[in-house]
């Protein structure tokens, strides 16, 4: 009885994943143009959230830097988009974010807890204001135009970024690096004493997670056609991944994906018509989640499942 159930699960999960992947990969063949745009936004939020969780999930360091990496990607696309082919622009966007994250990671090694969060937040604002000043005083213009790419291409690039990201996140989670990262989150000094190279691991993981955010920014910029520092370095791109990850729950691999997908969809249907109500709902759900669902949606699902299976066991 038990053996068949395990076997079933082994077929179930990869099978379902495969179906979803195939459905997403062939989306442009059957879906409307609107669906493609909608799914691009959803995938973008999943990319932002999952890459945030790679570093911040296991270590517990709350990074508010995603907006900086996203903005770097956006500006890479705006500056180089006209001269270089798209794949190279996206690659450079990721690389530039990687370098920035390496620098930030190396600078902030001593900062712990809440200091790290406010440092990364200040970083986004610093870059934004320096860039704004530079644009107004040096180039004399504010903002730039970005080359236009058709929506299907944007969607597929985002899809490829997401697939690579999910594979990376999965392998980090299952490897000894994931274990070492979790040990940093549990007790950093103890992790250092047991032979984990804390500094190198933190910096590299932070930088790797930034690559995907930068790449996502580089491709999303082509959809907006016009960007300026306020659009590119919008702190909401830092807040959203944090909130989506917490809402989904970081205990399981699928939690952040679920949280991001739900919120991205909510945003799509509510934001244009009722922006204030959307943000109000957003804030309320965040507070309620932190208070009553510290494990997020995933925790809720597990609790329900345990209650059901626990009930069964009690009867036999």
């Amino acid at each position, binding site marked *: 009885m038990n053996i068949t159930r395990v076997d079933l699960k082994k077929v179930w999960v990869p099978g379902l994943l495969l179906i979803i992947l195939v459905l997403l990969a062939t989306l442009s063949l059957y879906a409307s143009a609107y669906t493609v745009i909608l799914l691009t936004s959803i995938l973008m939020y999943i990319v932002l959230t999952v890459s945030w969780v790679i570093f911040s999930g296991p270590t517990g360091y709350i990074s508010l830097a995603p907006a900086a990496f996203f903005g770097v990607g956006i500006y890479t696309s705006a500056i180089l988009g006209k001269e270089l082919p798209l794949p190279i622009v996206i690659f450079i966007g990721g690389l530039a974010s990687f370098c920035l994250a390496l620098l930030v990671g190396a600078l902030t090694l001593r900062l712990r807890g809440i200091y790290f969060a406010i440092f990364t937040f200040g970083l986004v604002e*610093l870059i934004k204001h320096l860039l704004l000043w530079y644009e107004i005083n040096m180039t004399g213009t504010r903002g730039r135009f970005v080359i236009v790419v058709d929506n299907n291409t944007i969607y597929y690039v985002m899809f490829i970024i997401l697939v690579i990201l999910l594979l990376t996140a999965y392998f980090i989670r299952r490897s000894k690096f994931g274990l070492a990262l979790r040990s940093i989150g549990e007790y950093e000094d103890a992790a250092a004493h047991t032979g984990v190279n804390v500094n190198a691991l933190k910096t590299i993981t932070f930088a790797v997670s930034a690559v995907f955010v930068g790449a996502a920014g580089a491709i999303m910029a082509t959809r907006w056609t016009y960007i300026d520092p306020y659009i590119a370095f919008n702190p909401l791109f830092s807040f959203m991944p944090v909130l989506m990850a917490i809402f989904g729950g970081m205990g399981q691999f699928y939690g952040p994906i679920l949280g991001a997908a739900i919120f991205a969809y909510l945003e799509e249907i509510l934001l244009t018509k009722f922006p204030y109500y959307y943000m109000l709902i957003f804030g309320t759900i965040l507070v309620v989640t932190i208070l009553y669902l510290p494990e997020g949606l995933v925790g809720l699902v597990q609790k329900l499942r345990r209650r059901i299976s626990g009930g069964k066991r009690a009867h036999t």
Partner: protein
Amino acid sequence: MIVTILDIVIAGLLLGGLYALIAMGLSLQYGVARVLNISHGEFIMLGALTTWTLYTAFGINPLVCLAICGPVAFLLGFIIHRTLFKRLLTSSASPGIFESNSMLASFGLMFIIQNIALIAWGPEIRGYSYLAFPVNLAGALFGANRLVTLGFAVVIGLAFYLFLARTRMGKAIRAAAQDPVTAGLMGVNINNVLALCFGFGAAMAGIAGMLISMCYPVHGVMGLEYTIIAIIVVVLGGLGSIPGSFIGGFILGLIGSIVTYFEPGLALAAYYAIFILLLLVRPTGIMGK
């Protein structure tokens, strides 16, 4: 030349008084209640918009609004701590986890308060003119409203300092800031003290909002900007040090006015640069231990 320097210094002090008041409120909330309250600026916004409504709709003197904004913000802060943060405090495993959780919860609060205000007041930028006549100060002209703002900030700062230093309640607050567990064992009603501190912080934000509305245009999304300034000043003065925040406010005001004199576009960038450098070089701030 000397007049110019005086000009810059006075402008810096006028700005600094406001910063000091805002930062002291946050310092109290972080230093004692351990909540890095990202929604601090929203209380400022509420104070500012309430004052605007009371003045333009009912003709109530903004300075009288002090008696309304302060207590109402205090009550709001007190209730929020009693319900939200107290629950979080008991459910968090360690102080570090509480700090992260409470910061994230205050993000949620920021979105809630900000958007309720946007629904109630709309996104328009508002302002009114009150005491806007110029006063000659050492050869330079300054608005009377700004001088009143500075006066209020200094008086409130000093009054609060005396409250902390001289009264029994102040002693309890200082004890709770040093070691909440031991303070609780010594008979300090710790939940009450933490909620009081959070309320006082909110009250200072509300009063600061009222003062800001006299000098600057106000609108629903102004909060975050002031929250960030408060965080910078609190880090500058040393996280949790109330005198540090008071002095830090004036220092940042002076820096702002000096940078504005040379290159107006770089004032905010300069704040962030100082902030980031401070965190890297001396995260405990000027008065921190």
